[in-house]
């Protein structure tokens, strides 16, 4: 599976973790936090400002109180001095000296007093301390301090005024009226205060950094400023004009802008000193507040930033985590996919079913091979360089087989198609396949293909063989019905044509003269072509030098000629013969010798080796069937002859038998009758005329008598022999063991003095004629019995043994035995190995045995050695 498109699933992030969304969210959060921060900050700032300003106001009020108290104290001190008796007296008396003393004491008491003076009611200075002659007698009723005190004759603190000597600190004048006991005003006591001393007092009031305290007089001129150090000049307080007038009691704050300092915003809080008209200003720049609140701002900012960072980081963290998880999952999925792919790859490569994947090219004009597993390659006999090639490239004839239409159909309709077993053949391969074609969602065409070539070959072979067998069967069946060899040949030809798909054909045989004779031709329409026996000579002679058919016989090999026109040995067709387009000839062989030929012609697509093999296989059956038929006919003929012969012979044999019977009858009657006469009369002579005969005569007669007895036995034996031959044969299961035992018992009974050790094997059962086998065994036993008669320990054994798959039965004795040189003669009639004196007998017994065994289709023979006993073997068919 190469070049497979990677369509692995990409997992999606939660929307809020998308990179773009994270930025948007972060920015939004930042915005919100910033807004909140700013809001918070401004809220806080407002409160803080308020607080600061309250503080400032308090400070202003406190300062005013301090100043007021100070002034009270000064005024009280001055009033106490004014009310002193000595002072009163001095004033009343205008006693300068005394007044000055009093003033000196006052100045001393009020250490911040610059100087002290007393004016009269009209304001003319009459005494001062320290003494100042330049102002002595000077009227000050134009001055503020005088105007102030004289307005209601109440103590008064004057406006600020510059020092006369140009000292740095401005001066204020505190003036109190001097009254007498009746309350009449006599003059004014005034002291000049240096504001510097006030400033020191005020300066001790603690102020926030960035706050400045200023004190002005009733007209807003600076008396003291912690910020603005007043010079020699009396300068107005810059924000005085911005405050409400008249100045209310208590305190107030107001925002002012200090244009001189780039329009910075400042806050000014102010309070008046009661009754004195002085104003305390505490100014605090916005900046100072800001600086004061900076930490908070920083904290707030820090918190905001931190918050933002936390959120942002959290987002990032979650994103990363999700991504990591996804990557891990993807990795896992990928691994699983890989494993799965490996598995499928293994499966794909090793499955026995062929799989090929195609991609349509040129709108289904052709199909490119994308992949193909090994089974598929094997199936298609493609092993290299097929990837990327198209169906038409690698299978040039694919469009002619119908497979290609299936591909197109599947590609167009998307419906799977099963195309059953199909034979594909082109120059490179010829295979049987069956395919499932279907279209994958990707549009690729999958061909699942099974190579069923072997199966089809086998099926075809089985089919062919079945067809052949059926054909052969039909040949033999038809041959059974056929009346002659020509009919059989005709049947063979029909079958051959059928099997080879031929239009016509012929079967011919080589005649005993070496000529060629057509036995059968398929089409009755071309009688003209049949080769008459007379012309066969010419034909075979022609064929020895040329002709296509001739080659089959001459070269003794099958011949396929699918292009007869160009065949070199072509001789041309007889007149009236249909044209031959293709030819298949197979020699007919019998015992490796060519006996003829079968030829078929005009298979439409030409003959193949398969046809040839089929026809060769059939040819054997043809020869067999034809030969069988001819043999059958011959046999029938021979049977008829044989029947005649048999009936002739039977007649002869019947006659001979009749003669033999007559002979036997004669023997029994006619030979016996004279014998009986000889015997009887010789006995009669011996009985009746013994006295008339001498001993020699009697002896001779006795011999005659004996001879007749022997003759009688001989005749009996001969009759028995002939009976054995002539008697009916009736086959049954015969238990030889049982018969032999019975015979032994009989013999023992007749000869009770004999001691014979008899060993009889059990269960020897054969298919034979019971009566005859009894006679044979009796004779053999008689033989053994007789020839062991001189053994002290006679032993007779009956048994069987198997040798070379044949069963031998034997009767063994330990008697006198015989010389094997003569064993061949043993079974002839009247053959005797021992004198009648030693062992009586006629020599017929073994002849009878042999006849019986021969009648059973068996053999009998004897083995033995003189003095060592004999063994008689026999077999049965």
């Amino acid at each position, binding site marked *: 599976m190469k070049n497979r498109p990677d369509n692995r699933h990409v997992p999606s992030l939660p929307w809020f973790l998308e990179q773009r969304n994270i930025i948007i969210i972060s920015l939004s959060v930042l915005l919100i936090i910033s807004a909140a921060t700013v809001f918070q900050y401004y809220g806080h700032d407002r409160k803080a400002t308020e607080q600061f300003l309250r503080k400032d106001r308090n400070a202003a009020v406190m300062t005013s109180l301090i100043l007021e108290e100070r002034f009270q104290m000064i005024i009280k001190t001055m009033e106490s001095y004014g009310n002193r008796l000595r002072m009163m007296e001095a004033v009343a008396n205008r006693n300068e000296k005394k007044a000055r003393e009093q003033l000196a004491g006052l100045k001393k008491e009020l250490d911040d007093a610059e100087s002290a003076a007393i004016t009269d009611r009209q304001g003319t200075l009459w005494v001062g301390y320290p003494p100042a002659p330049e102002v002595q007698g000077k009227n000050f009723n134009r001055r503020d301090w005088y105007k102030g005190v004289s307005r209601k004759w109440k103590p008064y603190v004057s406006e600020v005024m510059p020092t006369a000597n140009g000292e740095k600190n401005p001066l204020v004048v505190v003036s109190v009226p001097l009254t007498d006991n009746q309350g009449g005003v006599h003059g004014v006591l005034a002291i000049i205060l240096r504001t510097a001393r006030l400033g020191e007092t005020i300066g001790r009031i603690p102020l926030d950094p960035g706050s400045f305290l200023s004190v002005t007089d009733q007209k807003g001129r600076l008396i003291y400023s912690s910020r603005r150090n007043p010079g020699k000049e009396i300068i107005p307080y810059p924000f005085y004009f911005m405050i409400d007038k008249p100045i209310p009691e208590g305190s107030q704050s107001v925002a002012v802008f200090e244009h001189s300092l780039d329009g910075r915003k400042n806050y000014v809080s102010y309070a008046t000193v009661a009754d004195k008209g002085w104003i305390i200003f505490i100014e605090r720049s916005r900046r100072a507040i800001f600086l004061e609140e900076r930490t908070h701002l920083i904290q707030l900012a820090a918190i905001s930033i931190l918050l933002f960072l936390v959120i942002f980081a959290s987002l990032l963290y979650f994103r990363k985590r999700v991504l990591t998880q996804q990557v891990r999952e993807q990795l896992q999925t990928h691994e699983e996919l890989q494993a799965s792919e490996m598995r499928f790859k293994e499966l794909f490569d090793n499955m026995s079913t062929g799989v090929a994947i195609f991609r349509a090219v040129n709108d289904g004009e052709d199909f490119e091979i994308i992949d193909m597993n090994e089974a598929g390659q094997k199936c298609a006999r493609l092993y290299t360089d097929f990837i990327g090639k198209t169906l038409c490239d690698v299978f040039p004839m694919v469009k002619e087989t119908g497979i290609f239409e299936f591909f197109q159909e599947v590609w167009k309709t998307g419906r799977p198609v099963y195309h059953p077993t199909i034979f594909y053949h082109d120059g490179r391969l010829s295979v049987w396949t069956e395919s499932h074609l279907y279209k994958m969602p990707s549009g690729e065409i999958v061909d699942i293909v099974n190579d069923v070539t072997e199966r089809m070959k086998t099926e075809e072979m089985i089919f062919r063989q079945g067809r052949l067998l059926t054909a052969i069967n039909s040949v033999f069946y038809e041959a059974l019905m056929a009346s002659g060899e020509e009919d059989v040949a005709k049947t063979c030809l029909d079958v051959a044509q059928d099997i080879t798909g031929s239009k016509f054909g012929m079967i011919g045989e080589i005649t005993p003269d070496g000529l060629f004779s057509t036995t059968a031709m398929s089409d009755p329409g071309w009688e003209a072509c049949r080769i008459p026996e007379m012309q066969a000579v010419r034909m075979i002679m022609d064929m020895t030098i040329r002709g296509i058919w001739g080659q089959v016989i001459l070269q003794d090999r099958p011949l396929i000629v699918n292009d007869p026109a160009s065949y070199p040995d072509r001789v041309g067709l007889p007149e009236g013969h249909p044209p031959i387009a293709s030819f298949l000839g197979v020699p007919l062989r019998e015992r490796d010798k060519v006996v003829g030929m079968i030829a078929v012609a005009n298979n439409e697509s030409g003959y193949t080796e398969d046809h040839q093999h089929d026809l060769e296989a059939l040819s054997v059956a043809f020869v067999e069937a034809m030969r069988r038929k001819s043999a059958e006919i011959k046999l029938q003929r021979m049977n008829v002859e044989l029947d005649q012969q048999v009936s002739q012979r039977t007649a002869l044999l019947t006659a001979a038998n009749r003669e033999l019977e007559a002979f*036997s009858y004669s023997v*029994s*009657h006619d030979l016996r009758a004279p014998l*009986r*006469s000889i*015997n*009887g009369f*010789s006995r009669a002579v011996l009985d009746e005329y013994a006295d008339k005969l001498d001993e020699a005569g009697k002896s001779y007669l006795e011999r005659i008598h004996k001879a*007749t007895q022997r003759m009688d036995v001989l005749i009996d034996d001969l009759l028995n022999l002939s009976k054995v031959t002539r008697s009916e044969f009736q086959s049954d299961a015969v238990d030889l063991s049982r018969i032999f035992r019975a015979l032994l018992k009989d013999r023992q009974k007749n000869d009770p003095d004999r001691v014979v050790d008899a060993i009889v094997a059990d269960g020897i059962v054969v298919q034979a004629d019971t009566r005859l086998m009894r006679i044979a065994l009796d004779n053999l036993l008689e033989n053994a019995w007789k020839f062991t008669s001189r053994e002290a320990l006679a032993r007779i054994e009956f048994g069987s043994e198997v040798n070379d798959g044949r069963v031998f039965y034997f009767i063994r004795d330990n008697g006198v035995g015989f010389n094997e040189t003569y064993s061949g003669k043993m079974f002839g009639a009247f053959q005797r190995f021992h004198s009648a004196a030693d062992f009586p007998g006629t020599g017929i017994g073994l002849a009878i045995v042999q006849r019986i065994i021969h009648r059973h289709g068996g053999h009998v023979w004897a083995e033995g050695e003189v003095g060592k006993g004999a063994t008689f073997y026999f077999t049965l068919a």
Partner: protein
Amino acid sequence: MKEKTILLVEDNPDDVELTLLAFRKNDISSKVVVANDGVEALDYLFGSGIHAGRDMNDLPAVVLLDLKLPKIDGMEVLARMREEEITRVIPVVVLTSSSEERDMMESYELGANSYIRKPVDFNRFTEAVKLIGLYWLHWNEPPPLARKGEN
């Protein structure tokens, strides 16, 4: 009691002689009528031919029948005897040289009462004849029909 008659059907004069000798030897004194061939035997039995006019009441107590006879053989004689009512029950002893099974079977099938192969040895032949005589003439009760002739 009237002498019982034995009909001996035998063409061989030697055998006739020997049979008669054997009868003699065994002191069988019954009347023995000898027929030299089948025709003679049948003539005697049915009172025809050369025996025409013979006393038909005198039926043999036993017929000793040889099989191989001139003119009409023993089998036919036997067959004819068994066909005729008069002779149907007369005991017939086949006395022959043949030991052929076929002859034996045919004889019995035709109604022979006994089948004796003539032994070649004279002593045994004599013994056989003696036993035949004793048996058929003394011990055997003839069928009533045959006895009818006695009255």
